[in-house]
């Protein structure tokens, strides 16, 4: 299965990188950009034990995100799991 995880800074939590990029863009001639948030994009292959359902796989990924890939105190996450 192909998994893609999207981690973003939690709403209300400062995003120093996003803020800096937002400030830099007008100087490079790009206007009209706002609400820049910079997070992480994590891709991996998951080969669960045979017989694992998509639902079960999603539960595993959710746990991986909660435990390791994102820090729920400062980050939000979403993910997709594709069979293949």
């Amino acid at each position, binding site marked *: 299965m192909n998994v893609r995880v999207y981690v973003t*800074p939690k709403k*209300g*939590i*400062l*995003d*120093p*990188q996003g803020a*800096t990029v937002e400030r830099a863009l007008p100087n490079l001639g790009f206007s009209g950009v706002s609400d820049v948030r910079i997070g*992480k994009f994590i891709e991996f292959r998951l080969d669960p034990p045979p017989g694992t359902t998509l639902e079960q796989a999603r539960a595993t990924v959710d746990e991986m995100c909660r435990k*390791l*890939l994102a*820090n729920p*105190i*400062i980050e939000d996450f979403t993910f997709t799991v594709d069979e293949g």
Partner: protein
Amino acid sequence: MSPASGRVRFGVVVFPGSNCDTDAHHAISTFPDATAQYLWHKDTDLAGVDAVILPGGFSYGDYLRCGAIARFSPIMQAVRDFAADGGLVIGICNGFQILVESGLLPGGLLRNMGLKFVCRYVNLRVENPATPFTHTCREGDLLRIIVKHNEGNYAVDPTTLAQMKARGQIVLRYADAHGKLTPAANPNGSVENIAGICNETFNVFGMMPHPENSVEAHMAGGTDGRTIFQAMIDSALGRAEVKA
């Protein structure tokens, strides 16, 4: 807690990528009433130490998030149990990051506001001298200690912050030479200039600056870091009555 030997035994945890472990070890060796030993991250017990140091560095390369992988090390369960029993734990820089990732301290540490690593001497204003880590100081004392980090920008939700303040968990703040909490004195954009915090029971302490690099008069760092370790030693020896 009063160690039988009369000398406080510090355990310095070594994670892959720790690099201030030897500095912490060396710093402790400059105190006559303390000894230091290394604890390996794959160990599952603390070998009977009286206090734990989670040192600075780049555990697991700081990949993903600082401290995110280290917090799963086998030794961290022992550290959690030790802390739950009231044992003294100090996390310095990366150690602080590991403590917040572990949930032993509230909040999180974000990328520095300037997006650059910053290595600089800062003034730390002691906000709460009634902790096992600062009882050697008076409120408002300024400590001159070095920071060196890329992710020291402390963040926490407003509700928790208010509770922390009410309980006195904010222990150190970045200040200017006059003790004023100015934005210029804040090296990383940390909320309310926070540099060091305690847990609710005041036995777990995290700080971004490096007291272990300020323990010898003839070195570049001066000696202001000694007071933190001295406070821990006195507390562990039961010499100090510290209100928690």
